[in-house]
């Protein structure tokens, strides 16, 4: 262990300060926040020592918001104003949600809009705003525990989350005032939590069986680089199905009718769940069911019977796992490590079946409810810059194919699923009528051939195409997906030299203006405070730019720049420093832009050199 250094007061010997960062598992039922402290990643408890925060938000008449245990306790008494499982609504229209079979007791308005709202006593709220409340509660918990403002967070999302759902998650974080360093796939986070990024490498399978979702991912690890090879899953399969299987068994045994009252059914599900939990450590569970007429039915469910009840469910997960392995181009015996995530992997039969399938004992040492948040915290610590020597890198894939609508309601795929991101792909299209000056572009995500079976991400229209005969125009549609899996689409007419292009943010997301106005609404303070906040943010950005450039110039300014070039850059830097001290938000923005312009060539030369150096096996420092 390294010796502690003691410095003179006021003279820090630390090369850089420890930056505060956290990992957040924003779950359907519960959420957690974790952070790395003294080299150890752990989830952070609330003041009562509870780690899990129920993902439940209650809106009160006076405009106050209650999040967590207290909100969950009020669910039965105030169902219309108490929102739970909001993750299922993220990036979804009403129709999508009804389609998945989720029951929604809330009062929806704007049902036809891409961002429907829920009516509460405190006003109408979107899923993004509800999630932002959960994130704010976690942020407060982290900042109180860590004693300072968070510089950045990593938020986990299911690997199968589509673009709309990722965008919605990112918007919620912005609304909660959090800087998102990365959206991380939950299974990848789990592998990181087990420190598999430090092992010798190989293929890792992550099997994640939660309450209502199943998710399997195949990762390859090599010298600190995680590559997600393929992901698969089922958004409507999980522990709840096990509870249902037990409940149905009880109904058959006790002669309870299918059309029993709501109250009876809810109690049955609760008893079924308790039996399942007992059976994780016991060989049998005794049941005592109160029937509607007040009499009791007593019985016993053995582990063996339970295993039989859930066998079809497990077989289904195994078959999805097999398919995902094939997508990844990997044989089952090539898998070196198996990681179990999600509360339902506590069921012994699940562990056994998955162990048998892979022919090895799965990792279960870390609490399967906490493992994702812990991995996210480790990644946040690296990304925020606390471990500059750490070589961990996560390469992700997109979980679903992206395409656009063509003639006859068919989908033309432009980027197939399981493509490594970031990625950009372009495809050319043409006009079908003489003199056509506009073209409507419909962006879709999914595997099926028909538009109606895929998820619509948004539509936009390219205007200003010069009139030509049909088939003469060449419209290039480019999809760019960034490292978080977020999509932007551009369309451009190529032949005429006149380029019309438009960039869309798909229609389900919030525009920057909307986010700003929501932020403004949620601020109790006046407009001046909002301005002050924007100014403070812009100053931080200016500092970031100046610091990065100063460090770069000290490192290799002489190597890449002529004296004149360097003078130009330095005088722009002085100008920005001056604007930062005395200018308005807009002036600082402009100062950053013009500094970026003068040093564009330099920044590019640096990066290209680092690429060449990487290939010739040398580091930039070795040139000195």
């Amino acid at each position: 262990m390294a010796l502690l250094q003691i410095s003179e007061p006021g003279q820090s010997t630390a090369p850089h300060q420890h930056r505060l960062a956290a990992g957040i598992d924003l779950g359907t039922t519960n959420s957690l926040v974790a952070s790395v402290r003294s080299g150890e990643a752990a989830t952070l408890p609330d003041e009562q020592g509870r780690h899990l925060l129920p993902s439940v938000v209650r809106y009160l008449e006076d405009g106050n918001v209650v999040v967590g245990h207290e909100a969950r306790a009020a669910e039965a008494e105030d169902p219309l104003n108490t929102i739970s499982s909001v993750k299922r609504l993220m990036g979804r229209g009403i129709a999508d949600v009804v389609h998945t079979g989720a029951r929604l007791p809330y009062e929806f308005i704007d049902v036809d809009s891409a961002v429907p709202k829920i009516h509460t006593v405190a006003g109408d709220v979107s899923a993004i705003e509800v999630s932002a409340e959960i994130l704010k509660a976690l942020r407060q918990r982290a900042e109180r525990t860590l004693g300072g403002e968070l510089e950045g967070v990593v938020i986990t999302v299911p690997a199968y989350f589509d673009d709309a759902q990722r965008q919605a998650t990112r918007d919620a974080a912005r609304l909660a005032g959090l800087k998102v360093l990365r959206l991380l796939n939950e299974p990848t986070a789990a592998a990181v939590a087990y420190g598999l990024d430090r092992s010798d490498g190989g293929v890792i399978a992550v099997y994640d069986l939660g309450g209502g979702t199943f998710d399997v991912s195949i990762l390859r690890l090599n010298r600190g680089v995680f590559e997600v090879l393929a992901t698969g899953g089922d958004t409507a399969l999980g522990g709840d199905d096990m509870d249902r299987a037990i409940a149905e068994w009880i109904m058959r045994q006790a002669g309870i009718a299918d059309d029993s009252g709501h109250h009876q059914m809810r109690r049955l599900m609760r008893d079924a769940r308790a039996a399942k939990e007992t059976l994780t450590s016991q060989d049998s569970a005794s049941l005592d069911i109160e029937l509607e007429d007040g009499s009791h039915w007593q019985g016993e469910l053995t582990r063996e019977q339970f295993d039989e009840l859930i066998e079809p469910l497990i077989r289904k997960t195994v078959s999805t796992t097999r398919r995902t392995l094939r997508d990844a181009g990997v044989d089952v015996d090539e898998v070196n490590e198996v990681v179990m995530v999600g509360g339902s992997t506590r069921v012994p039969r699940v562990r056994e079946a998955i162990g048998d399938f892979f022919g090895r004992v799965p990792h279960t040492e870390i609490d399967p409810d906490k493992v994702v948040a812990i991995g996210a915290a480790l990644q946040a610590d690296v990304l925020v810059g606390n471990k500059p020597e750490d070589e961990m890198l996560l390469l992700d894939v997109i979980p679903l194919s992206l395409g656009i609508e063509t003639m006859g309601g068919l989908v033309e795929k432009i980027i197939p699923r399981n493509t490594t991101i970031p990625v950009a792909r372009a495809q050319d299209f043409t006009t079908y009528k003489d003199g056509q000056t506009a073209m409507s572009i419909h962006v879709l995500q999914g595997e099926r051939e028909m538009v109606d079976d895929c998820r619509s991400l948004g539509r936009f229209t390219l205007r200003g195409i010069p009139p030509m005969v049909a088939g003469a125009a060449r419209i290039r549609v480019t999809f760019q997906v960034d490292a978080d899996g977020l999509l932007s689409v551009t369309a451009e007419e190529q032949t005429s030299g006149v380029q019309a292009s438009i960039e869309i943010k798909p229609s389900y997301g919030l525009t920057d203006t909307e986010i700003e106005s929501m932020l403004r609404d949620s601020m109790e303070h006046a407009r001046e405070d909002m301005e002050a906040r924007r100014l403070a943010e812009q100053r931080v950005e200016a500092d970031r730019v100046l610091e990065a450039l100063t460090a770069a110039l000290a490192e290799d300014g002489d190597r890449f720049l002529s004296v004149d070039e360097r003078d130009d850059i330095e005088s722009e830097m002085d100008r920005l420093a001056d604007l930062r001290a005395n200018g308005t938000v807009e002036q600082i923005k402009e100062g950053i832009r013009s500094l970026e312009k003068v040093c564009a060539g330099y920044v590019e030369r640096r990066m290209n050199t680092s690429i060449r150096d990487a290939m010739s096996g040398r580091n930039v420092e070795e040139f000195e």
Partner: protein
Amino acid sequence: MGNGLTSDYFELFGIEPRFDIDTAELSRRYRQLQQTVHPDRYANATDQERRLSMQQATRINEAYQTLKDPVARARYLLELAGEDPEGGQGSIQSPEFLMQQMEMREALAEARDQADPLAVVGDILDQVALRIRETTSRLEACFQGTHIDVDAARDLIGKLQFLYKLRSEAEQLEADLEDELL
């Protein structure tokens, strides 16, 4: 001025432009390049650096996908040599190849009505995998150092594209069948 965006994919990876490349070495270099440019390395950098890093990481992914897959790699080599890789579409006129394709497609279409449809689809997948291996090794023979047998390569690329399509249809059917059985 050296610009990483204009060099070809082989140059980017620092390997010789040929068909029989060492794919393990390719993967190693790919990871090394991503270690250098990936946006996660720039999570705290300026917007300008982040944009540039995303462009570079995107290009490296594209290059890797192209060089890793035999068909994409063969097409890319033809393009580098100034040849149109699409020229081969019309030349797939070998009656023997078309016959094979038709037989396998028919078997696939009838698989559902067989006693054990999954086994039938499994057999077809094995056959397709075998043909893909054979055809790929014949494709390799078309690239001898700097000399390329362009016509033969185009023809084999066309055949491989057929086989890839058949494979993905068979896999889709297998997935559908598995879902139905559960």
